[in-house]
């Protein structure tokens, strides 16, 4: 469904990866691993279409993602390093905006907040919350979204153990329904080994 061919990424005159071919099928969970600075985030950003690769292209359903941006963005959920939470807005307002932007109904917001353990914080300004809670606001969308492809950059950062467990559960559920999850993490996934694949990026010395 989503595939990348011959990807090369050069950042500040350093080759991060070269001639990378990837193929993501419905039901796949991919963990992108590798030491710091090996280009995990760059790879995710290229797959999401935020960054242009030096070479190669990413195709969604056989069409280059730049050519079908609207359809691709409709089916894509990307969560980057920064959670994209406005500290001037309340938790509920943040969540509602995120949902509205992807044209989803906002009636079940309260229930979503329960899922990510933010029940009772709905009307608190995000500025008063912790980093982990910010990330939870961003993650709350996962329980409602209809996007098929999830690209998650370090989704477990600053999340407590119970939260991680729930999130993994949700990821598994999504893959079982025919979705694709691509994520980076430094922790080991506690999913069954047969359920996910790992791509390890090596540092290239030139």
């Amino acid at each position: 469904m989503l595939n990348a061919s011959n990807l090369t990424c050069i950042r500040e005159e350093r080759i991060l990866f070269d001639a990378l071919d990837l193929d993501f099928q419905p039901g796949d969970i991919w963990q992108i691993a590798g030491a710091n600075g090996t280009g995990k985030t760059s790879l995710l950003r290229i797959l999401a279409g935020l960054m242009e690769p030096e070479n190669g292209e990413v195709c969604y359903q056989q069409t280059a993602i730049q050519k079908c941006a609207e359809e691709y963005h409709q089916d894509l959920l990307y969560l980057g390093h920064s959670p994209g939470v406005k500290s001037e807005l309340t938790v509920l307002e943040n969540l509602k905006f995120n949902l509205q932007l992807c044209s989803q109904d906002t009636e079940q917001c309260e229930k979503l907040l329960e899922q990510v353990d933010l029940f009772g914080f709905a009307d608190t300004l995000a500025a008063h919350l912790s980093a982990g809670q910010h990330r939870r606001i961003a993650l709350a969308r996962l329980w409602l979204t209809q996007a098929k492809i999830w690209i998650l950059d370090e989704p477990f950062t600053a999340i407590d153990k119970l939260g991680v467990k729930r999130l993994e559960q949700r990821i598994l559920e999504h893959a079982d329904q025919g979705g694709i999850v691509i994520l980076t993490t430094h922790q080991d996934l506690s999913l069954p080994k047969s359920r996910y694949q790992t791509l390890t990026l090596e540092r290239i010395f030139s």
Partner: protein
Amino acid sequence: MWKWLHPYANPEVAYQFTGKLIPWFNGIAFILLSIGLFLGLAYSPADYQQGETVRIFYIHVPAAILSMGLYFAMAIAGLSALVWQLKLAHAAIAAIAPVGAAFTAIALITGAAWGKPMWGTWWIWDARLTSELILLFLYFGVIALGNAFEDKSQGAKAVSVLALVGVVNLPIIHYSVEWWNTLHQGATVTKFAAPSMAMSMYIPFVICFFGCAFLAGSLICKRFQGQVLARNSLRPWVKQLALAEDN
């Protein structure tokens, strides 16, 4: 139709090609400028109103035309960088900008020097000079933006957008300044009434113009080579070149 252009989009070929052009450009520029300036400074008649000072025109006008033309060329490079993702265009923009800025500065300085005997002061807010000054600001903006980015190709793309925005605005700025000038100064004496230029002035002027153009071309090629090397420093052919240089 564009097939014959394709090999030149390869950095190595482009590097070799511009390398071959430079000596030719240098030679032509030297010959044309020697003839043109000799004719202009020694043989052409002095103006009946402005006297000998008119001779600064053989430098001032070519520089002014080139300053505008180079900005335009930069915008075209920007367009090809954005639309066709042409990596070499990045190098071209970075190569052209300082040369264009230099010609703009020459046009400004010679313009001011010309103004001194004519108006009795070094600077006057004449329409052409003001336009050149704003053009210089635009060039500085392009150069400063390019330098501000750590990542060269990101910087080049940003500069491409800016150059395109600038080139769209350039005529608007030019005409508004011209209009503003007539509004505030009444009918200023325009520096030269172009159409009635005598043949004895026209020929040296054209020769000087092409001399300056080839000089600009040679400078840009040299800078372009440097930019291509800097942007491809990881490629094997650049490394080989560096090794060959060392030995």
